[in-house]
């Protein structure tokens, strides 16, 4: 029952995102039809009016809103103003590349963050704890694009170890997928993933540390020690699984921020995922692209939150959805 309300709320949120999406891009300055019309003296007014017709700009706002809703639900995102290709065709690869980048860095962030959090909690107040928290926050506080640039200066500019940009060397085709192409992709992933992981690992570490500090004072931990388990066993079987729970919620709630970091890194490394296209679309005033990105980002966050709730119930029987 409560789950039904959650899903209903998520649905309402998505509808609201769609409404804002519609409104924001109607406020944007400039006439979209003008952007679409080639700016040479030879184009007649007819081209302009054809574009007005195609975009439905001659209709009233309520009509446009209905059209927009129907188009969104049927996954018709219109043509990019820049390339006049369907938005979906441009973006379907980009989404995969972004997911690859984000997934890999989230995985490393989680694993390293949990490990460091354990060390910090076990040596609370000692040098190890202080340096893990201190350095963690230091990297956490960096403008992530700046950190990316620094790593690029070091590893690309001076050491010439890694490729600077893109997700493969230019000219490599992925269609017949080869082992070499895979290696190339991995090579290009190293720097972006390293930047994102180092830059955000402190978030996980601090949550893990604080919740572990809490958990370690619980009665069942004392019981576990009393049973004669070694500290390592207590940590692995009793403390860590419980302490990890808040990370799931926090990561889901921070999805919007994580996406922000991924987008910046894509711009720095010319990694042509969603973030890079966002940047291009902002510069070209390419509204259909932006609308798509806006929508898909919002929906991703809503779904991540919903999933986190469900996963948490699965992981921890004590949790009830409220």
């Amino acid at each position, binding site marked *: 029952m409560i789950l039904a309300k959650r899903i209903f709320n998520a649905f309402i949120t998505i509808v609201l995102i769609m409404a804002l999406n519609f409104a924001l891009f109607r406020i944007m*300055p400039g006439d979209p039809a003008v952007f679409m019309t080639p700016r040479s003296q030879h184009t007649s007014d007819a081209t302009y009016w054809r574009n007005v017709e195609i975009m439905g700009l001659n209709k009233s706002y309520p009509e446009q809103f209905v059209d927009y809703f129907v188009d969104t639900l049927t996954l018709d995102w219109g043509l990019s103003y820049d390339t006049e290709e369907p938005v979906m065709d441009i973006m379907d690869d980009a989404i995969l590349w972004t997911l690859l980048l984000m997934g890999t860095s989230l995985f490393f962030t989680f694993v390293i963050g949990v490990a460091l959090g354990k060390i910090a909690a076990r040596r609370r107040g000692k040098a190890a704890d202080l340096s893990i928290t201190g350095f963690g926050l230091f990297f956490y506080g960096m403008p992530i694009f700046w950190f990316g640039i620094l790593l690029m200066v070091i590893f690309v500019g001076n050491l010439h170890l890694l490729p600077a940009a893109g997700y493969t060397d230019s000219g490599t085709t992925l269609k017949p997928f080869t082992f070499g192409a895979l290696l190339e992709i991995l090579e290009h992933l190293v720097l972006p993933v390293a930047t994102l992981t180092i830059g955000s690992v402190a978030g996980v570490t601090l949550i893990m540390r604080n919740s572990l500090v809490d958990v370690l004072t619980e009665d069942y931990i004392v019981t576990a020690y009393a049973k004669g388990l070694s500290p390592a066993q207590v940590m692995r079987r009793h403390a860590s699984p419980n302490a990890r729970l808040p990370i799931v919620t926090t990561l889901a709630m921070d999805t919007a921020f994580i996406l922000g970091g991924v987008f910046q890194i894509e711009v720095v490394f010319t990694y042509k995922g969603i973030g890079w296209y966002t940047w291009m679309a902002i510069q070209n005033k390419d509204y259909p692209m932006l609308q798509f990105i806006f929508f898909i980002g919002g929906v991703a966050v809503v779904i991540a939150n919903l999933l986190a709730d469900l996963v948490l119930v699965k992981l921890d029987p004590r949790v009830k959805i409220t």
Partner: protein
Amino acid sequence: MRFEVFLPRVARRAFGFKPVLADKLALFFRDAGRSTDLFLGSWMGKSGLLIIGFFLFVATYASLLMPYDINAGSGDLLQGSSSEHIFGTDHIGRDVLTRTAHGTWPSLTVGFVAMAISMGLGTLVGLASGYWGGWKDEVIMRVNDMFLSIPWLVLMMVIASIWGSRDLSSVIVVIGVTGWSTTARIVRAQVLTLKERQFVERAKAIGSGDWHIIRRHIFPNVVPLIFANAILTIAIAILSESTLSFLGLGPQEVDTWGKILEDAYRASAMLAGPYPFIIMPGLCIVFVVLGFTFVGYAMDEVLNPKLRKR
């Protein structure tokens, strides 16, 4: 403990302390003293204050401390570090160290003002939503969810590009109005629990108005919770400003650290150097953010004792 008992009876009469006021003063001083001790006792509090103090000092005395005039360009463009220019020069020959020092003030301004905007909005929305309850709460929270769900960076970029103007105040407003939803959620949760407490029921029973209850009973109990959050928000605002600048949507005519970074990036300083041009402003951002984060965490531990170490 009553503050009065520390005063001789004559003095008490002379100053005319009303018992209630005296109690409040006593509580304030006792708590303030203990809180300060606790705050300064943590290494985070100490180092955070030190860092912020340093930057406030630099911000105030930048023109006295720096060897060059902010607008004075030397003939050498994009120089690496030398004895004359410790951190080199920028793309039009200005001293990078001087520029960075002068950038402190605008950058901190962005942080503080944007924080004030988003905390104000967030608190207002949270108070209203939590106190009203019912369908109004439901509506406000759905809108809040929407703002929480939209990727913050994209929203900021879109609003900044709709707004179009690149002066400092509009950038601050853009950062302020995109950052209030978390605060609203925290405040609302706190208001919901406060509303059920006895002192609020008592106030209602003796006929206090809504506004009075919010102002006197609920708001004061929300403040400690959002105070630490506010300080972290300053850090986030400064980071946001630098990100907007990097993406070419930051303030144009004011030299914030973000602007200096943007100039460095435009001049391709990361490819050919001079590296100090790109490292200096970034490092300043990192340390200021670190300072505010430390202070924020330390305050959180002092003000919200539930989190205090056992």
